[in-house]
Every structure is written in structure tokens, then in C-alpha cells.
């Protein structure tokens, strides 16, 4: 369904802006302090990041984590307290924002309300003093790509939210920026449109090969769109990695908790193996699980288990109605349609289990007991202090 939508809205003829040359963007020790008082924490604390040409990078984190400040420093709307921003090896930290070869797509779209769609999109080209014919060609080209051709003479307020979003994107893309910056651009759209726009933006970005930095607090957006995710917290980078890496191998408890849903089970580390796994006592059992490099023998650790990696079976439970070891009691059930979720009480703590494709007859009853097993290859052992 999704692919059919995107295929119709973005024709192959992306001719007008095909000649975008992707750039490498490097952040070195990027810092931002709003207060001169040293006791006040920095908004952004010494960020180092190397973004490959054509890469789609997402800055993800809770509000106040510094992701927007980082983006605004890259755009030039905020001055750096310290550090450097290099575009293809040239430091641009001192360059005013209107000179930087970057375009930004804003959360509020920031369309000029007094200008038509066409005038909005051609605004930047006119400032470049391009010929009227070139401007018309480029604008028509990008409007066709964004499926906006029929709306060129409309005023922004006559457009739907999704259309406004496309105009904002067209206005940024038509400038052939070396880097495209997104400041939570999808947060004003309704849920269904948001999912559709994610795919459209990602498809377009891939096709044009344009280096992109996308700020969001929505982990679904980050997971589905990015080549790499930069998870931030309190002005620092917690982890940089591909979506699957960040999800399956989080570098810290914060990342594990922030991305996706997580069960944490108390575990005692019994043995650390050389192949990146460790054996830990959990749920009355000894499990050999993938482990964070900082895990050491004798430590209490936390075993991260995603709800979909918890296996439940009722057969074993019939033997015992007591909650010990790997036997748990069903405290709550929530039926979502595609999945059913259980809250299970075990003596290692309560955990959430998600079972896909449930049939009504199979759904466990409240207070019934079930055998709980962890898919050990999908679990991840984290040091307690991380």
C-alpha cells in the first residue's frame, strides 16, 4: 500500500534537481552554552560526528537533549560556543546562515503566507538572480516531482497540511542544497499522513542522494527513515548507529529505554565469553546472551528483553501455579488486533510480553500462569550503571 502511494507521487523524472552534489559534513567538538554560568549545563556538549555524503542521519532524543540546538548551529541560526562545522573539509562555523549551501524544512513549514505556492518555491531562486526562464523550469520541475503542479497558484492557507509540507520540501529542494536540514517536519501531520510522508521523504532523499539531517523525538520516524541514528541526551551523544544496532545493541540503559519498549530483568553475570556474549543468571536459569563490552563477571547487570522476544507457553505452567523462576502470572492483557500484550508478574520483576497475530481463543486469561522464556539471541546484557 505504502509503496504504491510513493511510486505515484514521485515520478522518475527528477530531472530538474538531479545535479545535487552530496557533501560530507563533519562536526568537531560542537558545543553550545546559553549561560555563562558554569554550573548551568551546556545545551550541546562537545559533539563529534562525521556524516557521509548522501547519508540520512537522524538526531533523536527527548526534548531538551540538544538535538534542535545542534541542527540550528549547523544551519547557522545559533552561534557555536566552541567547535567546528566542516562542509567538505571547509570550516563554515563563521559563515552567516544565508550564505550556507543548506536548506531547512521547518516544523511549522514556515511558508510565507502572503506568497503563492509558486512564489514561495521561487523565493530563494530569485535571490540567486537566476533568469526567469530557469526559475520557471526549476520550479515547474520540483512542483511536478512533489505532485503539486496543479496547486502552483494557491495560497498556503488553501492547502492541506500534507500539501503545505510538500511545498516546504519543494522550496528547500529547489535550492539544490548540499545538505538538507529537517526540524521535526512531520510533527504537525496526522498519524496516517505522517507515515506516508516518511516514505516519500526517504524515497526522494535516496533518489537525489542528498545529505540529510533530520531532527525528531519520534523514534518510529528515526527507525524507519535513517541510515544512522544519533541518540542524544542532555547535550551529549549517547550512541550513533544503524537503526537495528541501536535497537538490538543499545549502548546504555537510556538508549535501551528510549528506543522501543524494553523489559529490564535483574541478572547476575556468571561468565564473560570472548565472542561478545556472557552467561547470566536470570529468571531462575542460566542464559548465554549477547553482552555489552563493559559487562564484567560478578556484576549485577540488566538483561534487556524486547516484548516481542518474550515467549509464553501455558503447557509448562500447568505443573505449577506458583510464581517462581520462569513461571509468571498474567496481570493484564491488552488486545491490539495485530498483537496482544500481557503484563506478566515474575520474581525477577514485571515484564511486558507481546504476541503477534493472536486468535481470540488463545488469549491468556487474567491471573492465569504461564511459562516465560527469553529468546536469548535477541536479548542484550547491559551493565547496571550505564
Amino acid at each position, binding site marked *: 500500500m505504502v509503496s504504491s502511494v510513493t511510486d505515484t507521487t514521485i515520478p522518475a523524472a527528477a530531472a530538474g534537481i538531479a545535479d545535487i552534489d552530496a557533501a560530507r559534513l563533519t562536526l568537531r567538538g560542537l558545543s553550545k552554552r546559553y549561560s555563562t554560568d558554569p554550573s548551568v549545563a551546556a545545551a550541546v556538549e562537545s559533539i563529534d560526528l562525521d556524516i557521509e555524503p548522501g547519508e540520512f542521519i537522524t538526531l533523536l532524543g527527548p526534548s531538551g537533549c540538544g538535538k534542535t540546538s545542534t541542527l540550528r548551529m549547523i544551519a547557522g541560526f545559533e552561534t557555536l560556543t566552541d567547535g567546528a562545522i566542516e562542509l567538505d573539509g571547509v570550516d563554515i562555523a563563521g559563515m*552567516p546562515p544565508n550564505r550556507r549551501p543548506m536548506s531547512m524544512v521547518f516544523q511549522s513549514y514556515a511558508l510565507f503566507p502572503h506568497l503563492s505556492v509558486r512564489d514561495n518555491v521561487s523565493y530563494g531562486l530569485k535571490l540567486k538572480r537566476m533568469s526567469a526562464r530557469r526559475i520557471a523550469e526549476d520550479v515547474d520541475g520540483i512542483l511536478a516531482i512533489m505532485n503539486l503542479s496543479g496547486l502552483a497558484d494557491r495560497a498556503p492557507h488553501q492547502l492541506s497540511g500534507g500539501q503545505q509540507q510538500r511545498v516546504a520540501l519543494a522550496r528547500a529542494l529547489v535550492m539544490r542544497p548540499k545538505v538538507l536540514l529537517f526540524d521535526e517536519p512531520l510533527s504537525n501531520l496526522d498519524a496516517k499522513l505522517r507515515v506516508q510522508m516518511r516514505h516519500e521523504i526517504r524515497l526522494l532523499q535516496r533518489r537525489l542522494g542528498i545529505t540529510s539531517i533530520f531532527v525528531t523525538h519520534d523514534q518510529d520516524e528515526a527507525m524507519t527513515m535513517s541510515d544512522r541514528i544519533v541518540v542524544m541526551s542532555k547535550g551529549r551523544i549517547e550512541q550513533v548507529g544503524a537503526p537495528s544496532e541501536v535497537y538490538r545493541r543499545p549502548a546504555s540503559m537510556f538508549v535501551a529505554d528510549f528506543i522501543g519498549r524494553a523489559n529490564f530483568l535483574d541478572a547476575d553475570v556468571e561468565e564473560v565469553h570472548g565472542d561478545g556474549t556472557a552467561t547470566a543468571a536470570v529468571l531462575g536459569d542460566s542464559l548465554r546472551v549477547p553482552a555489552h563490552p563493559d559487562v564484567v563477571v560478578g556484576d549485577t547487570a540488566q538483561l534487556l528483553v524486547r516484548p516481542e522476544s518474550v515467549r509464553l507457553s501455558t503447557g509448562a505452567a500447568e505443573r505449577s501455579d506458583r510464581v517462581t523462576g520462569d513461571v509468571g502470572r498474567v496481570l493484564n492483557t491488552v488486545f491490539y488486533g495485530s498483537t496482544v500484550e500481557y503484563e506478566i508478574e515474575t520474581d525477577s520483576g514485571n515484564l511486558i510480553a507481546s504476541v503477534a497475530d493472536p486468535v481470540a481463543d488463545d488469549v491468556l486469561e487474567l491471573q492465569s500462569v504461564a511459562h516465560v522464556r527469553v529468546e536469548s539471541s535477541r536479548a542484550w546484557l547491559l551493565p547496571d550503571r550505564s
Partner: protein
Amino acid sequence: MTLTLDPTSTAAQALPPTTKRRVRGVGRDPSVAIIVAVVVAVLLLLLGLPMSKLVMAAFSDEGLVVFTGLFTNPANLRVVGNTMLLGLLVGVCGTLVGFLFAFAQVRLKFRGKRLLHLLALVPVVAPPFAVATATITLFGRSGVVTSTLLGLNTDVYGLGGLVFVLTLSFSPVAYMNLKGMLENLDPSLDEAASDLGASKARIFFTVTLPMLAPGIAGSFLLLFVEGIADLANPLVLGGDYTVLSTRAYIAVTGEFNVQAGAAYSILLIVPALLVFLVQRYWTGKKQVTSVTGKPSGRAELITAPALRIPVLALVAAWVVVTITVYTTVVAGGFLKVPGVNNEFTLDHFRFVLAGIGSKAMLDTTVMALIAAPTAGVLGMLIAWLVVRKLGRFAGVLDFVGMLGLAVPGTVLGIGYAVAFLVPTEIFGFQILPPLAGGAAALGGGLAIVMVYITRSLPPGQRAGVAALAQINPAIDEASTSLGASGATTFRKVTLPLIHSAFATGITLATARAMTTLSPIVFLTTPGIKIMTSQILAEVDAGRFGNAFAYCALLVTIVLAIIGLINLLLRKVIFRGLLRH
């Protein structure tokens, strides 16, 4: 006045204001620093100098005699008491009338709401002394209603007449305030109360009224200040009832004692400033609520006769009085001796148009047309600095700009007289020649234009701040991100978005400047004729017909200018639409 644009309806779309973005510092942009310096210098000249000179005069030796006498001399004490009593009564009566109109308009079911709304706002357009004069014609010793129709021998001069006239003039302020609040009350609160078993009356007293309390208190305070600060009406209608403003006027124009006038008038500043501060506090809070809570529907209109009949009867009675008074103003200009000899004549208009009147019309219009755009530009500049450029000092600049509204006209006029009738000196060096008085350059016209600018700056500034605050800073940043410099962004994006607020500002500025009297009477010279002070002179001389004719012409000119500005504006908008 209703045809002027609401500052909130500007072209700027209602983007959610972003709170986390901070405005840029001044230091980064030298052009901004220069603009700040110029604006501050202008404000110092317009407001700082006159107000500080006024305070110094009030606390000079001569001033102190009067000032201390205010609290010891029984005659002066009575003047203070009179003033407070007048303010109190005007506050109560005006708020009551305003509330009745607002309540009927928003909550009662009846036909002709639009008409009632217009009638409620009629007093805004007319100069206040028109009402006072009409009141004398109608209800005075030989008044049409009291003497001719009813055969009574009443005295309209004094407290009673003043309260009536000021209530009539200022109740629209309370009406607009309370109407807005009533409309914004969430009807689901009423529904919740009703759901919990409360009767309509109980809801009114336990939900509606408490929710309106800030609005009622705010209206009362505003009318209180208007009441104590008014000069025109007490001069015409006060009789033996002396208030601080008339006392100050007599001191300056009759006793030629400016210091005494300063001492009398300074007492008016304190309550005015207090009310101003309270108002600012409330408006600040109101903005927060208007973002979060949108009314979720319309309250059911009240049809219960127990409430409907008495309220509508009172409203109708007040409407009849309003219409009678304003008909008298309009008709009076065409009657030989209004109320006494009601023969049709064009003599009054001939007198006004052929005599000094034509010069007054020209002088007033020219000066207002110089002052209004200047005030408009200054207001937009201040708004731009306040909203976009100044962080910590934005509040201070905004406050100073709005002082022109807060300081009573009498006080401002005396301040100007104190400051500008003499050369301005700093450490013995003359830096400015006298700007006011017949001997000054341009016949003292400069000081009058300056007063006009000061008085008409606040509406434009307010409109500009409201318009700019609605424009998401991201729109400016989008323009920057697309390669535009700060100046280009201001020209191509910011200015087009606030130009209607600018027009609104100029419109309001013109209307305000042309109908202003109290600061002007202290500054008129033989060389410069101002319509409002000419009207006062005609009323003083008992030539009511001429006064009415002046009033009619003044209102016509004001409406013509407002219409012209709106026409120009519409033309610009139409052109804009056609282009796309």
C-alpha cells in the same frame, strides 16, 4: 471605528508561537543598535523630557506649596475628593452599562444584534464634549426634554451631569472588554454546572460572574482613570464641581501658574499608571489562556422572560438616550439656537467653514497627517525591536512607548507646557529652542505635532506587536535559510506581513490625534488653530450651534481619512490577489 482592522486579523497566519527560541542580541547587528539609539532619543524627547520637567515643576518651591496644600487646604481637599468620587461613579455606572449591553449581546435571544452592537459603539467616534453640549441642550436649565417637554427646573451642571456624560462616552470600553470575555467563556462550564443541578440564576452568580471578575475589575479601573483624567467634560459641564484636571487647567490658563498646574496634575498620574500596570499584567496572562482554550461551542441563548425583559428594557432605554443625544449633536448644527430656536439654518456651518473654522480644519488635518504616519512608523519600529530584536529590555521599551496612552492628556499637556515653552538646557547650554507657544518656530506647531505623535503612538505599537508576535520566527529563518539577508527578509517577508497592522496603526493614530483635546488646550497659540480647542471656545461662548457644526465636520474628516486609508489598503490587497 469598527471598520478599522482588528490587529489580530492581519495576514499573518496563526502559527503556534515558539517559546524556546530566543531573540537575537542587539550586539550582533550594528544597524539595530543605531535604530535603538534613535528610538530611545525620540522617546526621551517626546515623553522623558516633559514628564521629568513636570515632576520637577511639581516639586519646585511653588509647586510644593500647592502640592502640600492638596492635603491640608479644605478647598483643595474637596477637589481631590470630587475627583475620586467622579471616577468611582463613572467606573461603576460605565461598567454596569457596558455589562448590560455585553450580556444582552452575547447571552440573550433577540433580533437586531448587529444594530445594537453598532449603537453601543457610537460614542467611540464622537468627540466627548459633543455629548456634554448635547446634554446641556437636552437636559439643561432650558433643556428641550427637562424644561420644554417636562416643565422641570433641573440643574444638569455638576456631578450628576458629569457622571451621565462620562458613562455615555466611556461605557463602550467596558462593553468591548466584557463582550470579548463573555464570548470566550467556555460554554461547557455552564453545561457542567447545569448538569450538576444548578439553575440558570445560580450558574450566573457562581460561574459566569466569578469568571468575569477580572474583566469587570479591569473595566472599572479603566473607566475610573478615564473619569478622573477627563478635562473636556468637566470644563463644559462641571459648573461648581471642580476636579483636579479643571483645577490644573485654571491654574495654568487663568492663574498662569504652571508649577501649580503640575502639582495638581501629578496626582492624576499615580492611579493612571497603577491601572496601566494592572492592565498589562492581565493582558499578559490573557494571551496565555487564549492559546490553550478555544471555546468549544456556543452557549445556548437565554429566552427566560424573567431575565430577558428587564435587561432588554434597560438596554433599550439607554439606547433611546444615546440616540437622542447623538441626534441632537447632528441636528444641532442645523438649528438656529439648538433647543431654544429650532429654525433650520446653515449659518453655523457657514461660520465654521468661512471663518476661523476653515483654518482650524486645515491646521488640524495637516498636523494629524504629519503626526499619524510618523507615529505609525515609530510604532512599527518599536514593535519590531520589542518582538524580534530586544531580549531583556523589550518590556521597558514597550512600556515607555505605551505611556502616551497611560498618562492623562491633562498631565501630558502641562508637561509639554513646562518643558517646551522655555528653551531646553543641559548644564547651562541651550540644546533646543522653545518648541511650544506663539513665539516658537512654526507658531508652536511643533509641540502640538509632538503631542499628537505621543498620543497616537500606542495604538500602532500595540497593533504592530500583536501582528509580529503572531508571525512565527521560523518564517524569518526560512527566508534566511533560502539565502536572504536580514534587510531583504524585513522588506520581502516581515513588512508585507505587518503592513495591514501598520495601516490600522495609522488609522487609529489619525482618529486619536484629531479628537484629542486635553493636552492641546495647554499648547494652542494664536497662530495655530486646532478644531477641538475651537469647539471648546464655541461652547464656552454659548454658541452651541457652531460647536455642533464643528463636531459634525470633525467626525466627517476623521471618517473620511479612515475610509481613505482602508480604501488604499484594500486596493493594495486586491492588487496582491490579482497578481497571483
